[in-house]
């Protein structure tokens, strides 16, 4: 339990830690949490958020969202914005899995349509979307294509008949972040990634068939803006990232950054906070490589979507277009991006690191797709495989308070080993089936590690961010089918 005596309560869901808390803090830290979440938060979050506050060029606050837990350097659930000229970029502020993120697809199916076919559907998707140790994808891209793929992201997919025409517009950044440069990515990263497109990975990654859950929450008016018109409408959610490609990019540049800090006179409180000036050659090289990895992840999720559409089409004997399987949206939750923000009375470009945090842009923002611009950017916050997830929208308050950022998930409370001690995978699988959730997992150990008890209460996390005005709830989604690596 963290020491809350050092904090100043700002609202019922936000707490500040002043710069006097630790020598070297350039800005205060701000924690978003109910008292209940705060009391349960590991004290590592406070330590890490206040360490991040010491980094050169950080502006306003070092943030920790309601799902925050201890990470490497930055807490998971951490957000920090930096002056692009005087500030730093940190691979630890992005995470190993660059653009780990969430994609949500709707269907026009109702639960009564899907329930009798859930096993057939999940089993088919499991066979089409590889998951687990060392899996290879079915897409045979070549290393020579990687430059274009990681530069153009989902737009490349659309140009090569691997995406629907309207898919790119429904992905953050239009499906690709500008600034990619494959020459800044190592041969090892390219080799690792080239055969992994369309794979789910393992750990906390999943593909879930979900049903709208009005008993938990549903704003029918807002939901309708996303094509959600039934109280039991079926959706599909995908959670995965940039696979070995992104991990290798992070590993490569952590090494470069650690050895480069002395040259720039940067000293950090935690080795995992290795950082260099964003304006430096190495900083720019990492950014370009990170963008390649982010675009890789967008493409990875696109290839998976294609397989999901194929599976639904085969099981329901209708084409995916007739099943209205359009993207609602795709969000990053591990990334650093240059964005325009207003703060302290002026507008500026800042480098926003979101590590286990989601962009939450409000109504009217030009980066929100035209279809949603009047209401705000869709935000997808994923819970554990037992508790379900949420669709929300971004707000103007997020723009004012958190550089347009909100939480990303429920956050772990228990280690993988501890979770496996509490429950066996096979037993958990049976229990979930009894509760109406059919799970197909690559390994039973992996399943046990992802048990719901290992995570915070997603509803409490989402409620916190809603009460803070940072992201507004639209619909709760409960799982009925799940694929885990």
């Amino acid at each position, binding site marked *: 339990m963290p020491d809350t005596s050092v904090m100043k309560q700002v609202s019922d869901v936000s707490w500040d830690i002043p710069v006097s808390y630790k020598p070297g803090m350039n800005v205060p830290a701000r924690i978003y949490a109910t008292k209940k979440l705060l009391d349960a938060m590991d004290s590592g979050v406070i330590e890490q958020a206040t360490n991040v506050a010491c980094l050169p060029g950080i502006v306003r606050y070092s943030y920790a969202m309601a799902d925050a837990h201890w990470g490497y350097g930055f807490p998971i659930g951490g957000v920090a914005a930096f002056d692009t000229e005087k500030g730093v970029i940190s691979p630890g502020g992005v995470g190993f899995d660059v653009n780990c993120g969430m994609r949500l697809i709707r269907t026009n199916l109702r639960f009564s349509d899907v329930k009798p076919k859930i096993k057939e559907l999940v089993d088919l998707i499991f066979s089409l979307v590889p998951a687990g140790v060392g899996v290879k994808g079915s897409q045979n891209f070549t290393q020579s294509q990687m430059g274009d793929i990681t530069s153009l992201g989902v737009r490349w997919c659309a140009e090569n008949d691997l995406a629907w025409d309207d898919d790119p517009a429904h992905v953050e950044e239009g499906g690709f972040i500008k600034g990619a440069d494959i020459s800044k990515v190592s041969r090892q990263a390219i080799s690792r990634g080239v055969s992994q497109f369309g794979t789910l990975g393992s750990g906390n990654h999943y593909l879930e068939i979900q049903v709208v859950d009005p008993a938990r929450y549903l704003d029918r008016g807002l939901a309708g803006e996303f094509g959600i018109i039934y109280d039991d409408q079926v959706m599909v959610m995908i959670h995965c990232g940039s696979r*070995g490609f992104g991990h290798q990019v992070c590993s490569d540049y952590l090494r470069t950054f650690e050895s480069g800090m002395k040259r720039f006179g940067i000293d950090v409180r935690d080795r995992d906070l290795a950082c260099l000036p964003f304006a430096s050659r190495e900083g720019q090289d990492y950014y370009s490589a990170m963008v390649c990895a982010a675009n890789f992840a967008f493409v990875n999720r696109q290839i998976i979507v294609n397989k999901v559409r194929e599976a639904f089409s085969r099981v329901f004997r209708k084409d995916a277009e007739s099943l209205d399987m359009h993207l609602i949206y795709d969000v990053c939750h591990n990334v650093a991006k240059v964005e325009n923000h207003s703060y302290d009375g002026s507008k500026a470009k800042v480098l926003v690191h979101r590590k286990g945090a989601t962009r939450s842009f409000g109504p009217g923002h030009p980066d929100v797709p035209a279809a949603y611009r009047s209401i705000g950017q869709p935000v997808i916050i994923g819970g554990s495989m037992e508790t379900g997830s949420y669709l929300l929208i971004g707000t103007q308050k997020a723009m004012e308070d958190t550089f347009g950022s909100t939480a990303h998930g429920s956050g772990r409370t228990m*280690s993988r*080993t501890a979770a496996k001690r509490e429950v066996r995978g096979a037993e958990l699988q049976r229990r979930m089936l009894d509760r109406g959730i059919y799970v197909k997992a690559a390994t039973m150990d992996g399943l046990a590690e992802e048990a719901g008890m290992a995570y915070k209460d997603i509803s409490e996390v989402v409620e916190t961010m809603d009460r803070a005005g940072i992201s507004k709830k639209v619909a709760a989604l409960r799982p009925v089918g799940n694929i885990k690596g």
Partner: protein
Amino acid sequence: MTFKFLPDVALADIAFEAESDTLDGLFEACASAVTDIMVDPSTLGKGVERKFSLESESIDRLLYDFLTELIVAKDVDSLLFGEFEVSVSPAGTSLEALARGEAIDRVRHRLRNDVKAVTMHLFGVKHIGAKWKTTVVLDI
């Protein structure tokens, strides 16, 4: 040479501690730990041999690079290795290693977690008394 997992070190990932009387043994223990996270080694054959020859600026970096090579081999060539013979130079800045294993077989192998990267968290090779020791946290 031994390794043991540390259940409370990393919430979302997996950590282990390894020790050995020799530096060679430490590297072998760490490699075995990485494999153990990914597969039940008793289900892994030894029909494929791969040699590794690495140079680095320090013992820490050498171990980091060696374990990273194993992760890369898993992703690029679908190889998992269960037996290691490592020879680290006296300066600790280069090694020659022979690893024995086989290609991933999803039917025969009892696969576990997919290791994606070695983190720098708590990472460091120490020589304490007569023992070489290290702690490694792996991103899953």
